[in-house]
């Protein structure tokens, strides 16, 4: 059957439905005239005689419905009618059946059924016409009718079958419409024609409240309504459909951010209305704002962070970096982005295995690492870094980037290095200082002491010192009272002590210890520990005493040189006049005899008178005293000239021999002893010749020998028991000479002053008191050696002289 010639009058008031039918029918080759009301249909059917079939919607707007319309038309002319209805109620079908209809189709059942119904209608109609016009063919027609009826029945059966599925399908569609999670509304002239339940729920309205209402009611205000309308319709006109964000209002007043789209029902006929969708994007907006804020925060944190940060892509190329990195790197970030690749940095070769692991997405920390900026062509030189790498992930868990946070620890490193050097320095000082350093707890327990301190106290290590002292430093003090006094001073008052005290070595030997201690307190002011310095000053004290003596002697020497000459003249007057007075009174000189006679007496009488009145003794005493004073002056002068003597290379043993010789011949120097009664034991070592002033050393040795002899005889011990041992030896670049007697010895006070000028141990008048100080001067100042004395009362005296083999400052 050819449909192209067939013309169908479509009575349908709904444009969308009409459009659907029109396109469906035209596709099948029919030409369609559409009217939207019964009145128009009647009129059109009258005017247009070419109409072959009426396809009528039962439900029509206007005064007459589809069935009534068909009835009116059919009264005027014979045409096949097919009804369309969305209602399949019995009343409707009944009404439709009252007229001579040829088909009944439920709306939206699809084109197949519609076409089949239309075709059926044509056939029925034609068959009916044939019956009417060709009576003779009635049989055939009846048969055909019968067949058609059968077919109709089959179709009806089919119809019944599909009707149910159609009903189902429609409710499905409806429920789909309502189930859509987007608000949908059909809008005509900015009024809701139809809305789905989602839209109702979204905005809090009942369907009946929205349908028929202007869309204005959902907008927050007129302005927003106008704006959204302008944008949506304007865009729809330009591009086919519109989209905008708008602020709409829930019925209860809440504001909802909505994304609204608008699509025309008929692009060619916009007055036909449009389909709008409305999405609640409030949450989305919020999320977007939150995301944006979070991004801004991240950016701010990254930019403001003092820690250099890098964002790298998965190939290691720089994507972004912050200011801090730029500074550390002295680089322009924009120039480095896309170019700098961390995996290709030759200076990071050592970190490459770690970096490669980081690029697998493992978060990890980098160890402290050295980077030479100069070598990398950067400014700033040495760089010590540490850092952390962690992956950036998308929502799906895919790693998109690696972030590296770097910490520039160069300063800390150099501070650490400085500290290490300083500690090493301190340790060096601690270990190598010759002064003892110690640290003890408040309770006196030993914390630490340096090697010098161990040596001073005679310990081999800290442990031994602790054990030996029973863990209390009280044990190093020779006097417990002194320790208590010092301790009291440490714990109160000055919290420090500085002075010389008697200390004790591990072997019990006492020594003079220069002690300098202080109490160290913590920042809270509580005592932490005691630290101090200690030194064995026994030798130093001795040296100091000697220095003082030496100074005294130098003063005397200077004085002597000036005085000597002036004293010698008056001494000459005293001595010579006293002497001459004696001569002129006691000698049998011709002048004396003559003078006596002239005075009317005899010289003999004068002699007797002088002796009787002891005038001779007075004068002798005057002369002798003058002689002694002259000797003192002479010795003082020798003393002052001591260093000027000539030096020769000589053997000390032979000088001692000469001194011994002189001493033995010098018996008349002192009348009260005989040097030859002393036993001399010589223990001479083999000596090299050394530079020395022979007469000076002779004088020293003679002096010592005579002192010993004098002391021994004065002590009253029997002659023959007196012994002087003379020992010499060459050792360690110096020559040691000892004179040891078995005399009475001396007490500590005497020993201390023995080298002092004018100090004499012997009887007053026994000596000048300059002998030993002159000896001291000769040995120490003249020869760069030393002279010391060891003596105890009753134990004899030992003088020890040490002379350098090489004269210093020769």
């Amino acid at each position, binding site marked *: 059957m050819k449909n192209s010639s067939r013309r169908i009058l479509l009575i349908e008031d709904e444009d969308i439905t009409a459009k659907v039918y029109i396109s469906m029918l035209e596709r099948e080759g029919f030409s369609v005239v559409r009217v939207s009301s019964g009145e128009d249909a009647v009129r059109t059917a009258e005017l247009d005689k070419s109409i072959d079939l009426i396809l009528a919607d039962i439900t029509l707007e206007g005064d007459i419905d589809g069935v009534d319309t068909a009835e009116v038309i059919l009264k005027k002319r014979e045409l096949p009618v097919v009804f369309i209805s969305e209602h399949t109620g019995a009343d409707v079908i009944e009404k439709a059946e009252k007229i001579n209809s040829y088909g009944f189709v439920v709306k939206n059942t699809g084109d197949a059924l519609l076409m089949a119904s239309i075709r059926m209608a044509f056939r029925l109609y034609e068959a009916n016409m044939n019956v009417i016009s060709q009576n003779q063919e009635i049989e055939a027609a009846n048969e055909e009718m019968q067949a058609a009826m059968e077919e109709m029945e089959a179709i009806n059966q089919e119809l019944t079958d599909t009707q149910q599925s159609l009903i189902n399908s429609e409710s499905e569609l409806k429920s789909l419409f309502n189930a859509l999670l987007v608000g949908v509304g059909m809008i005509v002239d900015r009024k809701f024609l139809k809305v789905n339940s989602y839209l109702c729920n979204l905005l809090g309205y009942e369907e009946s409240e929205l349908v028929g209402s202007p869309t204005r009611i959902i907008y927050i205000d007129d302005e927003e309504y106008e704006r959204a309308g302008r944008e949506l319709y304007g865009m729809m006109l330009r591009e086919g459909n519109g989209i905008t964000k708008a602020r709409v209002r829930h019925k209860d007043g809440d504001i909802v951010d909505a994304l609204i789209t608008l699509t025309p029902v008929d692009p060619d006929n916009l007055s036909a209305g449009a389909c709008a969708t409305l999405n609640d994007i409030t949450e989305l907006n919020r999320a977007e704002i939150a995301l944006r804020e979070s991004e801004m925060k991240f950016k701010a944190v990254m930019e403001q962070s003092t820690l250099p940060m890098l964002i790298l892509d998965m190939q290691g190329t720089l994507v972004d970096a912050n200011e801090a990195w730029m500074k550390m790197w002295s680089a322009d970030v924009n120039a480095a982005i896309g170019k700098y690749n961390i995996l290709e940095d030759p200076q990071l070769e050592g970190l490459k295995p770690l970096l490669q692991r980081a690029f697998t997405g493992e978060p990890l920390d980098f160890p402290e690492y050295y980077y030479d900026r100069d070598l990398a062509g950067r400014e700033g030189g040495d760089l010590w870094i540490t850092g952390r790498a962690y992956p950036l992930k998308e929502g799906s868990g895919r790693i998109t980037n690696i972030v590296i946070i770097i910490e520039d620890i160069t300063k800390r490193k150099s501070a650490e290095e400085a500290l290490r050097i300083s500690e090493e320095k301190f340790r060096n000082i601690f270990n190598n200082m010759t002064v003892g350093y110690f640290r003890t707890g408040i309770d006196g327990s030993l914390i630490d002491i340096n090697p010098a301190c161990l040596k001073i106290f005679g310990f081999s290590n800290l442990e031994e010192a602790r054990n030996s002292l029973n863990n209390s430093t009280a044990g190093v003090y020779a006097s417990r009272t002194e320790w208590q006094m010092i301790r009291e001073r440490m714990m109160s008052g000055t919290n420090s002590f500085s002075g010389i005290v008697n200390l004790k070595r591990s072997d019990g030997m006492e020594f003079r210890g220069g002690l300098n201690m202080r109490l160290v307190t913590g920042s809270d002011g509580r005592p932490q520990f005691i630290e101090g310095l200690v030194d064995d000053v026994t030798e130093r004290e001795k040296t100091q005493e000697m220095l003082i003596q030496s100074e005294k002697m130098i003063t005397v020497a200077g004085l002597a040189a000036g005085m000597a000459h002036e004293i010698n003249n008056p001494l000459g007057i005293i001595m010579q006049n006293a002497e*001459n007075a004696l001569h002129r009174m006691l000698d049998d000189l011709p002048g004396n005899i003559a003078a006596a006679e002239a005075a009317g007496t005899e010289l003999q009488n004068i002699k007797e008178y002088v002796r009787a009145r002891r005038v001779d003794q007075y004068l002798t005493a005057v002369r002798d005293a003058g*002689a002694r004073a002259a000797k003192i002056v002479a010795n003082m002068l020798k003393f002052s000239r001591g260093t000027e003597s000539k030096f020769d290379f000589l053997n000390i043993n032979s000088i001692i021999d000469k001194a011994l010789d002189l001493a033995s011949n010098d018996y008349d120097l002192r009348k009260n002893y005989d040097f030859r009664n002393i036993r001399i034991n010589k223990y001479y070592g083999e000596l090299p010749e050394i530079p020395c002033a022979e007469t000076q050393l002779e004088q020293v040795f003679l002096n010592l020998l005579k002192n010993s002899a004098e002391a021994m005889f004065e002590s009253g011990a029997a002659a023959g028991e007196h012994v002087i041992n003379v020992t010499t030896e060459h050792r360690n670049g110096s020559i040691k000479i000892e004179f040891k007697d078995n005399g009475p010895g001396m007490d500590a006070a005497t020993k201390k002053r023995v080298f002092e000028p004018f100090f004499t141990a012997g009887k007053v008048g026994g000596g000048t008191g300059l002998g030993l100080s002159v000896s001291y001067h000769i040995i120490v100042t003249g020869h760069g050696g030393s002279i010391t004395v060891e003596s105890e009362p009753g134990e004899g005296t030992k003088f020890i002289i040490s002379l350098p083999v090489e004269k210093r400052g020769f």
Partner: protein
Amino acid sequence: MLKRLIIIDDEEYIRIPIQDFFEDNGWQVNPFNSAEEALEYLKTDTAECIIVDMRLPGMTGLEFIDKANSIRRGLKYVIYTGSVDFNITENLRSIGITEECVVHKPAENLSELLNAAEFKPGCGG
């Protein structure tokens, strides 16, 4: 004939006992307070020995010996000095003065001076 002694010392009581002691021992003594006076005397007179102090007001003992030697060669000198620093100069040695001609002041006894004055060898002559 008595041996003649010149003694030069600015200390009167150094001069007097020496003069007395020498006179007692048979010498004729001419004492002088200064070297200048002694030089004047030497221009017209002479002596067997001259005891001279080194430190004198005006002309020193050394200058005196030098000048006296130019006036009269072969004089015998005994240097009597309070200075222990005294050394016999080359010049003194050249006119025959040796250690024996030097007595340190104060002499232990006056015979020291007498011995030195009577010491025959050297000391000029």
